[in-house]
């Protein structure tokens, strides 16, 4: 019953926990997915805006005729004029780019001559192919411009190139590390990686250390293949991708296990609560079961006690006494020796008549107390009816004389029960008469043993009461035995 109830409660708790698990899973995945998508869109907009701004500054070279019309030559008509013009162009270019973190902002001419802000890094990287290779970066026909990263596998700078005239191109660049500000995010999602990749999946920028310049790992590139704007989530990754610029992609990714780590923490608490609830349910169950079952068992115990015990004296009733003694005798070994003492209160009727049945009951109850004190746990004690009592006990093994031992016990019992009952100004002397029989000397079973003891009791009564007799010695008569 207890187990069944607990099992049902625990099953319900597990069911609820499972439902909460699933719901948590769905909500968490959905939440992280939408957050990552929003983040990615924001990154893409940041990137587009950043590139647009730099392009706009680049187009300002068309605001100066001197800048967009000039073509450098290895053999100018007037070298001094050429130098002066280039000085002016250089000043113009510097003034255009002054407030942005451009690394390069210069004109590159078909003779590989440069004017304006050109970094040593770019000079070193392109060398004598500076015009040729920058020209090759122009990939948008309409606007005659283009973006490029990873020239000669160098990803430190990102270049924007725009053709200005047949012999001149504008070259601008910024450090890739500038993109940290573009891709800065508040960090709401733990361990999210942000990358910018080109059309060949070369990583132009990564929020992870030492990844820039390498190829996007297959685990991610396979999942985003053919996608221009999407969110992908499976057992391994949550990935969002967005196209920016012409053919670059902003990719945000986070391993699913990182997301689930958060879920696992939630689940741990759910399990903790479920276990706690199960324990509480179990304890409540135990408490309630005890509350229900204790009175029943108390009642059963009481009834059982009532069936075997005499309620007034708390001694065995006749039936129980007979059963127990019979069983004991039945199972006795041949060397075992027992004694049964049977006694009743002398003139008990007179006590009842003079002092009432309550007084009689009081004396009977006191007899029970005295018997328990006299025999302790070594004997079976019973009230066999009215004022008739009996004690049955095993005789010690090595007695010199069994009968003398029994006589001494009988004498001690009679002495202990000899008392005066007082009530008001009246008193009544109480005494008992007893008879004893021995097993196996006098009898082989309960009935015989009882009959023999009763016979001895009869002799005691007949010889003047307040005395005892052993079966087989009744003829001696008198009160010599008390």
């Amino acid at each position, binding site marked *: 019953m207890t187990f069944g109830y607990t099992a049902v409660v625990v099953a319900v708790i597990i069911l609820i926990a499972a439902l909460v698990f699933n719901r948590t899973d769905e909500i968490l995945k959905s939440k992280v997915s939408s957050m990552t998508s929003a983040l990615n869109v924001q990154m893409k907009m940041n990137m587009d805006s950043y590139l647009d701004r730099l392009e706009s500054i680049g187009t300002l070279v068309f605001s100066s005729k001197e800048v967009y019309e000039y073509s450098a030559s290895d053999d100018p008509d007037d*070298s001094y004029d050429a130098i002066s013009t280039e000085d002016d162009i250089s000043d113009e270019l510097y003034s255009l780019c*002054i407030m942005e*973190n*451009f690394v390069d902002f210069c004109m590159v001419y078909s003779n590989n001559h440069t004017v304006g802000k*050109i970094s*040593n890094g770019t*000079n070193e990287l392109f060398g004598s192919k500076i015009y040729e290779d920058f020209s090759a970066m122009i990939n948008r026909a309409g606007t005659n411009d283009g973006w490029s990263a990873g020239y000669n596998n160098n990803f*430190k700078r990102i270049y924007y190139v725009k053709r200005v005239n047949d012999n001149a191109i504008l070259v601008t660049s910024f450090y890739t590390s500038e993109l940290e*500000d573009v891709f800065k995010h508040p960090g709401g999602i733990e361990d999210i990686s942000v990358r910018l990749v080109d059309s060949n999946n070369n990583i132009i920028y990564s929020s992870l250390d030492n990844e820039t310049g390498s190829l996007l790992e297959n685990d991610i590139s396979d999942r985003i293949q053919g996608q221009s704007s999407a969110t992908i989530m499976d057992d391994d990754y949550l990935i969002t991708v967005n196209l920016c610029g012409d053919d670059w992609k902003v990719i945000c990714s986070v391993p699913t296990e990182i997301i689930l780590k958060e879920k696992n923490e939630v689940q741990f608490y759910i399990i903790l609560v479920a276990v706690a609830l199960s324990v509480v349910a179990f304890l409540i169950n135990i*408490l309630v079961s005890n509350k229900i079952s204790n009175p029943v068992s108390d009642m059963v115990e009481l009834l059982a006690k009532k069936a075997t015990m005499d309620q007034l004296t708390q001694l065995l009733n006749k039936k129980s006494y007979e059963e127990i003694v019979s069983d004991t005798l039945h199972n006795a070994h041949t060397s075992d020796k027992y004694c049964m003492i049977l006694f009743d209160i002398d003139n008990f009727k007179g006590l009842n008549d003079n002092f009432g049945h309550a007084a009689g009951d009081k004396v009977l109850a006191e007899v029970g107390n005295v018997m328990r004190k006299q025999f302790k746990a070594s004997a079976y004690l019973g009230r066999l009816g009215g004022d008739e009592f009996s004690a049955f006990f095993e005789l010690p093994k090595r007695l010199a004389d069994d009968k003398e031992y029994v006589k001494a016990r009988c004498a001690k019992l009679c002495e202990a029960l000899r008392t005066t009952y007082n009530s008001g100004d009246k008193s009544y002397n109480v005494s008992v008469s007893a008879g004893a029989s021995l097993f196996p000397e006098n009898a082989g079973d309960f009935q015989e043993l009882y009959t023999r003891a009763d016979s001895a009791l009869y002799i005691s009564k007949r010889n003047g009461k307040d005395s005892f007799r052993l079966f087989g010695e009744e003829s001696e008569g008198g009160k010599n035995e008390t």
Partner: protein
Amino acid sequence: MKHKKSVIMLLATAAALMFSSCAGSSAPVTTFTTPVEITLSWWGNDARHEYMLEAVDRFEDMHPEISVKCRYTEWSGYQTRSDVLMRSGTESDVMLINYAWIEQYSPDGDGYYDLNQLSDVIDLTNFSEYELSYGMKKGKLNAIPIAMNTQTVYINKTLYQQYGVDIPKTWDDFFEAAKAMKGEVYPIAMAAKPMFFFVTAYAEQVCGKKFMEQDGTVNFTAEDFEIMLEFYCRLINENVMPQVEYFDRNEINSGKYAGTLAWLSDGSSYFGKAAQNGYEYVVADYPVTDSAQCGDGWYAKPATMYAMSRNTSHPEEAAMLLDYLLNSEEIAQLQGVEKGIPLSKAGRQYLSDNNMLSGIQYEAYEKMNEFDELSVLSPYFENDDLVEEFRYCCNTVLYEKNTVESQAEYLYSVFSKVKKN
């Protein structure tokens, strides 16, 4: 009865806990701290940017309560941009500055933060009083020097030996070398500013007087400027060096230039790759005329300096960053001798303990220290606008657009106004 009360109490507590979380009786408040953001600006090459960014990362790791926003670029354009930022009061909290800028932006000592007020954060005991005096203006510590710097003659010994020419010791040796190299290789090359130092050193030795006093007073006359202009034209015409407009740093390691005049602090970045091309570079003596002593006409100055904005909203955090950039083991390890041999005792000690004081840049440092009397450069001397004026006049004379006399007069009038302006 007692048990019943306990159960009721338990249920009541549980219910109270459950409903307290969703009752919404008071708005939940979660406080958080936003890091203090400070800005740091510097100029330099890729290598410098990389180690500076790494240094800043480490600083942020050590001080998560501070976020550092970096503004960096190559030298070209940095000063013009800094000029705009300084004048508009939007300069970085901590910035790398040039020695000359103290005079330019802080003539009364109030242009930058007085770092003496932050001496409890910045460990100034790493610097001698003399070293700190470079950054003092009107009793206020405007900037702290990182290292000392001077123009240095770097010679490609391999190329010189190929042409059978000794390492030059005099001005004439350069002209002799140019003859031997027959226009195939320039004995020396340089950008505009080093060229200004080069021809000034020559002119000072010839004239026997200083070009300019510390306070900007120009000692040279128009005739002396003539010597400078003519010397530059001679250097170009006799193929000792290419025109400064055509100086290309990439040619240093290609074998087109057999020598370079450059800052001591540029030694590692300019010549670090020379060995890969089979070239051995050495630091040569400063060239002299027959009557001059080696070192005459040459100047030393603080290589670069760190200063703080007078407008900073976070002086303590900025000072922490400044101290870190000057005195920490982290910066000593990452920076090495890239900005020159550090003046900071702590930084120098770290480099010495870790055997990092070596290479061509250290050779240049030792060469500089050979000359106790190497004059301290006047801040007015290095004014970019004046250098540009000089270059302009050089070309005017070189291309015979005007006479050397008129251009010398013009330069004299321009330079004489520097102190007044």
